């Protein structure tokens, strides 16, 4: 006897992790899309006329995001101009393959695509950076450069907003990682649905409450074309542990993912906790809590043959820079 859909009584194909409801294919599509619509409306993520860059990696989350954003924009007449925006880090055998997926998405969804590369923006590909620095701190470079690259790419296409495919599982993972690191500033920021208004483009996460399982199931049933291979340079062990932990807890109690996000949202920081003051970089004008932003510092290190310059805590970096007489 097949399990029936909680909404319509047809044959169910999936058990929703958030609600434990069994659902058929059509009711699942509808519930999945409507919840994202509700998130968008409740948080007032967009206003008509917005030009929105969808950060597109070719992976499952951003592929589903592009598909759903287009569907909802049509269904509810958000009147958004949607663009696909991809960052080419210059990683042979990884990004070049995933960019092919994004190009297919461009054609499948009829959305314009802009690709910005690290090589154009910074003069360095990740392949070249790894040759310089090895496989230890390369992810620091990539992460810092990607943040700015999305902003710069969005500005080049005159977009005024960026959406990314970060899902509920990702955010729960980040909460755990920030707790483990004692990173209070990021802990407070990481659950916000929109970040980065001052000095950079607003960035929002329409999948903030969307479970990874549902994103993958949606992509599977809709036969969406996505790319899934781990970056060849990234063992990313730390996030890997947080990720495995979240999945283990989800197995026992599926609501844990939303509960962890809720915990992050509810934290209030004591007044006497020192928080970094957000200013702007004196070199490039990008938001930074230091006088020179991390990207400029990393770049200075690369260009001066001291690639470790920007790695580590700011006060330690300052010491190194003082010793070497850099301004």
């Amino acid at each position, binding site marked *: 006897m097949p*399990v029936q859909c909680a909404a319509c009584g047809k044959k169910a194909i*999936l058990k929703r992790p958030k609600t434990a409801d069994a659902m058929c294919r059509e009711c699942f599509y509808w519930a999945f899309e409507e919840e994202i619509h509700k998130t968008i409306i409740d948080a007032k993520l967009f206003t008509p006329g917005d030009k929105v860059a969808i950060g597109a990696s070719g992976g499952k989350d951003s592929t589903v995001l592009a598909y759903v954003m287009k569907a909802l924009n049509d269904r509810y007449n958000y009147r958004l101009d949607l663009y696909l925006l991809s960052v080419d880090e210059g990683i042979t055998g990884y990004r070049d393959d995933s960019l092919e997926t994004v190009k297919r998405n461009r054609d499948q969804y009829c959305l314009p695509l802009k690709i910005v590369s690290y090589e154009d923006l910074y003069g360095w590909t990740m392949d070249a950076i790894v040759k310089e620095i090895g496989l230890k701190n390369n992810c620091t470079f990539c992460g810092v450069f990607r943040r700015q690259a999305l902003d710069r790419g969005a500005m080049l296409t005159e977009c005024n907003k960026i959406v990314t495919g970060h899902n509920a599982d*990702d955010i729960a993972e980040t909460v755990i990682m920030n707790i483990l690191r004692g990173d209070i500033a990021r802990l407070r920021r990481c659950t916000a649905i929109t970040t980065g208004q001052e000095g950079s483009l607003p960035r929002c996460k329409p999948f903030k409450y969307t479970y*990874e*399982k549902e994103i993958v*199931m949606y992509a599977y*049933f809709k036969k969406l074309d996505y790319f*899934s291979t781990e970056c060849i340079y990234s063992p990313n062990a730390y996030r890997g542990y947080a990720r495995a932990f979240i*999945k*283990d807890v989800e197995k026992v109690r599926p609501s844990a993912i939303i509960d962890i996000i809720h915990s992050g949202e509810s934290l209030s920081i004591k007044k006497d906790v020192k928080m970094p003051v957000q200013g702007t970089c004196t070199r490039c004008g990008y938001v930074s809590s230091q006088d020179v932003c991390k990207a400029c510092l990393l770049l200075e290190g690369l260009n001066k043959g001291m690639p470790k310059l920007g790695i580590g805590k700011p006060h330690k970096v300052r010491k190194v820079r003082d010793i070497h007489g850099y301004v």
Partner: protein
Amino acid sequence: MSLNLKLEFSGGAELLVNKVKNHDITLPISSKLWTLRGLLDWIKDNLLAERPELFIQGGSVRPGILVLVNDADWELLGELEYELQDNDHIVFISTLHGG
């Protein structure tokens, strides 16, 4: 008599089985019925190239790997206790890879 199954590994799970997505397999009929639990043991012994712990943990699939039987979530079908039928299509999708 034997039990024919179509196995599919995707979302990165194929990396654990020699990077091959589709495997048509035949299980010998034994006195006991084949369940998904038994299939996982069979996969461990016959398909997993290295590091089986990336696929199987505590006697089940590693949390974060989704399982579908004939396009339905195995969580609706009794998970490990599901009794396999001839020509079943079993899909394993990893969600643990980057998005």
